[in-house]
């Protein structure tokens, strides 16, 4: 084999595909758009959920008779928190608790008054604390438009203050704990380190994000490989190349060039991710939770290489066996669909990551890498399963590379003629695939 020629082909494939508009878009455009979209969504939702500017004054109608503290302790006057005001009407007599009808009439009148104040712009909303609040905790909020999470939280605090104020002196716990009796601290099961909510979500979501990047990068570049072969067949470049370079050299050159391209793409995305992590503390927690050891990273990189080879060899075979780009795309689409099946069946991974379906995906060659990585985030995968999955993937790579080389040699000069499985099987059985790069008459048609 001439490494010089392999390097030439690899270089050509790398730069030609690097300059493709579709590559530039997927390499730079996708992460850029993702970052911009994430930023905008974050800004919009954060603002939407935390902004209390529209809720300066909230009326309170206390049917349960529980409210005793209106001011929040420790809050300054210019705080964003709303001011809670009891709705009252001095002109109405306060009814006895024993007279339900009079109570209903009284509170209905108060609600009408609150509504009038709301319509007049004096209130931004009002609460009606239900009669049975101490039993069922119901607080009705009347307002318009979006209710930010911060308002719900503030109302919760407000009610917490009312409950705390009524705690008996003898209670041997902090009164405000009555309103929120637990303070969860989540810890990593292995290290015992405290984990934030973002970190917990990150631990589950990161493998999915990684698999997504993984599949996108691999399938994009493997499709370039396939398109290149089909183009060389369609334009008849293949026949000229066949007199300059051995099929195996061409094959390896293309695979190396596109593997480098794939790494470039992932490198760009990782750089974008690192930028995000460096600039946002939340993102740092999100990523840090995965706690990847060097061995884990080596395993993931190793699986990426295997997966890329498997994908490339398969796409190469499809390209060599197809007659036109449209046809090869259809077949390649099926392969991509199979690979993303674990993503589609994500619910089964969440509900039972060690169940039969995730196990099947772990051991099926085309989904083994994605299946395994998805499970890493959700369960402790037994060592024997990792080894078996890797072994299956390695064997599959060798089988596919061998088959792809046969198909490539057999199909590379078959212009306008599909290499059918039957033809391939016949050629493999007769052992001629290694001897011939074959022109049209493999299945008996006339030679020129």
């Amino acid at each position, binding site marked *: 084999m001439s490494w010089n*020629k392999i390097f*030439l082909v690899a270089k050509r494939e790398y730069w030609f595909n690097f300059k493709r508009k579709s590559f530039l878009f997927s390499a730079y455009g996708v992460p850029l758009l993702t970052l911009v979209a994430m930023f905008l969504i974050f800004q919009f939702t954060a603002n939407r959920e935390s902004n209390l500017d529209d809720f300066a004054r909230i009326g309170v109608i206390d049917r349960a008779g529980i409210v005793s503290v209106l001011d929040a302790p420790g809050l300054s006057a210019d705080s964003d928190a709303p001011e809670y005001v009891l709705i009252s009407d001095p002109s109405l007599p306060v009814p006895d608790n024993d007279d339900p009808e009079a109570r209903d009439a009284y509170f209905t009148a108060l609600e009408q008054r609150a509504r009038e104040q709301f319509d007049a712009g004096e209130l931004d909303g009002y609460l009606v604390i239900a009669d049975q609040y101490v039993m069922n905790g119901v607080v009705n909020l009347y307002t318009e438009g979006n209710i930010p999470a911060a308002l719900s939280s503030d109302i919760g605090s407000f009610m917490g203050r009312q409950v705390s104020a009524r705690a008996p002196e003898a209670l041997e716990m902090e009164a405000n704990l009555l309103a929120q009796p637990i303070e969860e601290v989540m810890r990593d099961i292995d290290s015992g380190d405290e984990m934030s909510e973002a970190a917990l979500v990150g631990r589950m979501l990161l493998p999915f994000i990684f698999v997504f990047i993984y599949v996108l990068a691999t399938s994009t570049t493997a499709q370039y490989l396939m398109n290149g072969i089909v183009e060389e067949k369609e*334009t008849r470049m293949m026949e000229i*190349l066949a*007199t300059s370079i051995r099929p195996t050299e061409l094959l390896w050159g293309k695979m190396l060039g596109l593997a480098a391209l794939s790494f470039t793409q992932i490198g760009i995305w990782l750089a974008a991710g690192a930028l995000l992590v460096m600039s946002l503390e939340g993102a740092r927690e999100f990523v840090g939770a995965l706690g990847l050891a060097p061995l884990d990273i080596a395993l993931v990189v190793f699986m990426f290489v295997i997966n890329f080879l498997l994908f490339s060899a398969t796409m190469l075979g499809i390209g060599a066996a197809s007659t036109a780009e449209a046809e090869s795309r259809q077949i390649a689409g099926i392969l991509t669909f199979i690979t993303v099946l674990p993503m589609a069946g994500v619910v089964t991974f969440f509900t039972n990551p060690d169940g039969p379906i995730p196990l099947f995906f772990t051991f099926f060659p085309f989904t083994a890498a994605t299946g395994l990585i998805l499970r890493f985030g959700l369960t402790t995968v037994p060592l024997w399963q990792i080894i078996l999955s890797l072994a299956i993937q390695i064997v599959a790579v060798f089988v596919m590379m061998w088959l792809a080389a046969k198909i490539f040699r057999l199909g590379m000069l078959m212009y306008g003629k599909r290499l059918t499985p039957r033809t391939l099987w016949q050629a493999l059985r007769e052992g001629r695939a290694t001897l011939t790069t074959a022109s049209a*008459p493999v299945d*008996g048609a006339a*030679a020129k």
Partner: protein
Amino acid sequence: MNTPLNGCAICVRNVTKRYGNFTAVDALSFDVEPGEIFAMLGPNGAGKTTMIRMVLDILKPDTGSIEVLGGPISDATKDRIGYLPEERGLYRDVPVIDVLTYLAQLKGVPRAEAQRRAATMLEQVGLEANIKSKVSELSKGMQQKVQTVATVLHRPSLVIIDEPFSGLDPVNTQMIKDLLYDLNRDGTTIVMSTHQMNFIEEMANRLVMIDHGHRVLYGSVQDVRDRFAEDAVVVEGTGDWAALPGVRSFDLSETGREVTLHLADGATPDSIMQSLATNSGYQVRRFELAVPSLTDIFIQVAGGNNNRNGG
């Protein structure tokens, strides 16, 4: 200047190639001499392309042997061959200079040298303005010139071209012809496979005609034509052709300007010429041996074989 070879540029000995039950090439033997322009002709499906692919080591023969440029074909030999297939193309979305440089580099030419040569040759074929154009932006004729340049850019010792002039207008045909003559003058052996017999008659030293995988004609172009020469002369002039001594019969051409005189037993072209010269009833403007064109020979041989094979 290419190094002269002592042996043959291509030696084909008893080569057979089968695809299943179909025999594409059957016990074929021929030699291509170094420095000559050699033509390979035959009807469609005769086995020419299969034979060329075997010479180039794209296909392996089932039996027989092929030697190229002095020995069995190797990677080093391939770098000394330029090949332009009949069904040809180039990377479409790549600048002309890049395609040419890449293909020359694959043949072992250093990058800078490949770029320099490409620029020179593109100028030679009138495409200097298109050096950075993408292949897809060129006309069909322009693309064909680029393909021809790609075939010879690495200065091969042997050039194999399938249908070199198809699709070219007369000006471009002449340009490519000049290019091939220049290469040949520098010692490059040229093998062309074509259906355009006039180019073979004009350019080729020798030929092999293949039909149904068999060699049906082989030798120098002149020898082949002489072999098929009729016992007749072609005359342009006036006179009573039936009364001319030594003439068995005559055929008037469709234009009526020339006549083919078929010679009687014992008559020779010399005796006919003498009769015409001594007889004042005849006026002669042109007199030549009735040697058939290669087209006639091709039709005669290929047509005869087709009839025998029921085709």
